[in-house]
């Protein structure tokens, strides 16, 4: 019996195809994981399944019946519940109050808390969620809150749960507790759709695993009938049909451009996102950071750019940059291609030429003293558009009008302007077409030959191996292995990334 079946789902946004020909079959009473890189189309797919967005094409069947969702209330009606990554709970309410909020049972016009409470303990007991209905949510830990969220959707009658990156916010023992709870749900016939990119966790809990790459489902693996390995999944997620990026000969020099020592950053919950990271990058060197997403890469980048508080020291070109703000660091010659371009690298409502200024407000050709120099900026924007083949009718269109790939080419062009000495690049070729990808690689290689130091973070193992002069593997915020790109294979890297092996070579 299939709980959910998706057939031929397509979803297009202006300039981007988020989902193409998605096919998915989820057995009732199973845990079905959906894995894929960020940007592969997982969240769009879940929004479609939860009724937050409509598919352009394709059909959704729930329990064998074709359904159409106009809003999440339609999907709740057929028994689909979503547990979001960010909890939607009121801290100053009790578990009981939070759970009934929005669907309060009434008796003679007032809320029937007694009835609600007995139902909550009934649900909690039968699925082994271990939740005290009278506890104040503000006093609960993250894992408990997550189970409250699960209870909330079960209370509303959900038989199919969608969990969006549920382990992202949890520490290891909480993950174990969550998995215990999920097994309890499964044994009671609840279907769980589990979205994640943490492969070891997926392997622990899922019965079936569907891999999404570049918006489409590429494979479904069944753990009951076959042995599935993390490397296998990693390969499926990343694919290997791409042109091979290769650097020719070493250009690494003796001059240290970036010297990071004992870099540690703790989040507001006291969890160390990165701990004791130390490394050097020389002029002409590309250092690749390999790792499954969410293991501290973003935090490392933010700490280096100065947008996240961190302890330890950062030296850029023999200057102590640890205490400098982001702008001063950029003025030292740091170029930055962030992971989330629309949120961090662009002003979507501003014309393209004004986006040329962003991040380079104090530098030529954008400013002289405190004055901006729009004429020079506009000329330079035209240069970027030509050199980097940004497809746009002009420099006055808003950044939001460009497709993702063209936005990325523009950002790369902007960041490579003005002879930077250090480039911090997160997934520089993600979401761009193969041609643009090759162009960006060429650009990185040329800059490296001229002495640029690059910190390259990528989920694309071929890109990492092909471009990097050396590779470090990050797992749970720590470097766990070094790899030599000349000899390492994607399989070995995959092993190290998932913690299967301590060293990759």
């Amino acid at each position: 019996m299939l709980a959910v079946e998706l057939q031929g789902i397509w979803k297009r946004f202006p300039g981007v195809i988020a989902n193409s020909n998605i096919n998915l079959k989820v057995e009732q009473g199973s845990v079905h994981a959906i894995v894929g890189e960020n940007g592969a189309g997982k969240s769009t797919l879940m929004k479609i399944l939860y009724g937050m967005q409509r598919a352009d094409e394709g059909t959704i069947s729930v329990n064998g019946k074709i359904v159409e969702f106009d809003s999440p209330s339609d999907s709740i009606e057929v028994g689909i519940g979503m547990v979001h990554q960010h909890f939607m709970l009121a801290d100053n309410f009790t578990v009981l109050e939070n759970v009934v909020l929005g669907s309060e049972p009434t008796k003679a016009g007032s809320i029937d808390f007694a009835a609600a409470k007995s139902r909550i303990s009934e649900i909690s007991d039968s699925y082994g969620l271990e939740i005290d209905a009278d506890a104040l949510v503000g006093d609960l830990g993250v894992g408990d809150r997550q189970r409250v969220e699960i209870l909330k959707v079960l209370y509303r009658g959900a038989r199919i749960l969608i969990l969006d990156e549920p382990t992202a916010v949890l520490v290891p023992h909480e993950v174990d507790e969550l998995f215990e709870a999920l097994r309890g749900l499964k044994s009671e016939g609840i279907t769980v759709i589990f979205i994640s990119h943490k492969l070891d966790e997926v392997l622990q809990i899922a019965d079936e695993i569907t891999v999404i790459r570049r918006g489409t489902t590429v494979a479904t693996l069944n753990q009951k009938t076959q042995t599935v390995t993390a490397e296998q999944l990693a390969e499926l997620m990343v694919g290997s049909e791409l042109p091979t990026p290769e650097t020719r000969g070493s250009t690494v020099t003796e001059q240290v451009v970036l010297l990071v020592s004992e870099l540690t950053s703790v989040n507001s919950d006291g969890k160390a996102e990165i701990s004791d990271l130390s490394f050097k990058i020389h002029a002409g060197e590309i250092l690749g950071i390999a790792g499954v997403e969410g293991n501290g890469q973003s935090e490392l980048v933010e700490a280096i750019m100065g947008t996240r508080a961190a302890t330890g020291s950062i030296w850029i070109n023999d200057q102590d940059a640890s205490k400098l703000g982001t702008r001063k660091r950029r003025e030292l010659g740091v170029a930055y291609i962030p992971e989330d371009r629309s949120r961090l690298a662009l002003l979507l409502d501003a014309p393209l030429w004004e986006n040329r200024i962003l991040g380079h407000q104090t530098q030529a050709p954008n400013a002289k003293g405190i004055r901006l120099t729009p004429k020079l900026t506009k000329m330079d924007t035209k240069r970027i558009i030509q050199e980097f083949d940004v497809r746009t009718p002009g420099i006055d269109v808003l950044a939001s009008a460009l497709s993702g790939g063209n936005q990325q080419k523009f950002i790369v062009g902007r960041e490579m302007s003005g002879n930077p000495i250090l480039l911090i690049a997160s997934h520089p070729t993600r979401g761009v077409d193969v041609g643009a990808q090759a162009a960006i690689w060429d650009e990185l290689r040329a800059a490296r030959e001229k002495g640029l130091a690059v910190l390259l973070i990528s989920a694309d193992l071929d890109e990492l191996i092909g471009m990097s002069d050396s590779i470090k593997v990050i797992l749970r915020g720590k470097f766990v292995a070094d790899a030599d790109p000349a000899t390492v294979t994607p399989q070995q890297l995959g092993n190290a990334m998932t913690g299967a092996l301590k060293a990759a070579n």
Partner: protein
Amino acid sequence: MFKRIDTLIAPLVAVAFSVLFGSIILLVFGANPIETFIRMIDYASTPRSMTLILNSATTYYFSAVAVAIGFKMNLFNIGVNGQYRLATAVAALVAGYITFPGYLGIVVIIAISMLVGAAWAGIAAWLKVARGVSEVISTIMLNFIAIGLIAYLMAPTVLGVKTAENVIGTPIIPAGNRFPGVSLPTAPIPVYGMIFLAVALGFGYWYLLNRTRFGFDLRAVGMSPSAAVASGVNVKRMTVYAMLLSGAVAGLVGLPLLLGAQYTFTVNFPGNYGFTGIAIALLGRNHPVGIAFGALLWAFLDVSAQILDLTGVPREIIVIMQGVIVLSVVIAYEVTRRVKVRRQQAAVGSAGQ
């Protein structure tokens, strides 16, 4: 070419819609809309009315620019009322009690007024960056505190005096501290001299936003705080600067009336220019020229409404029209924005891919 039409179409549609709406209301009240509008325009065309329009518009312009500076950074300064009232009261006390040589007085008084406005807004800025208090809440609260503070300052036992009409206020400002006006031909009253300061402010505001790094940082924070941070902008510092600037400009709002016509700050000093400023900033889309047109339109409606009472039509119709203009302009701007984005996406689509 398209750009020009785009920016004009929204306010024109909004004004046209409000004229239509006003006409319907006039018809409901049994008045002939065309006749009424012609009478309003006639009345507004007299030199006296034109002077009044320019004078009101000057005041509104300062207020709207003060609000617009905040809007550019997604800060909602509802406290212009409190800022300008307190600033004007302090300026009036200084101007009333101290005589300065030559034009120094005017310079000092304007500077003090701007400083007081900035300081009052600065409290809200500090609360926001240090304590996370929304500026919407704190500036409203500060409006009330300002009223109380002014009442204290104006008490005859403190610094206030009883004026001729038996109203409590500041001493009459001596001639040397007044801002000289300019008269239109045959007009019985002069145009505020501070209108030139308003024009200069408009240019300065445009230059600051579009031609300086500071202005770019400010707009970047308004458009995307996360991108601004990643580009190296210190958002907290920008919040403080923007609030201080907004407050300093708010400090100018009461001065045209104080230094150009009334020469004393009484407890009856008009107290709601700040809210008018919010409406005009919306109407002019925070653009210096747009705000100028908005201020003139608003002032025209205010002044020409005075004739309506004489013809037996309730002048509140004008207030309704002003409200309709603001509502419809907000909608019209959003619609044109969406059309623009869609057209650009289409243009980008045909350029490549």
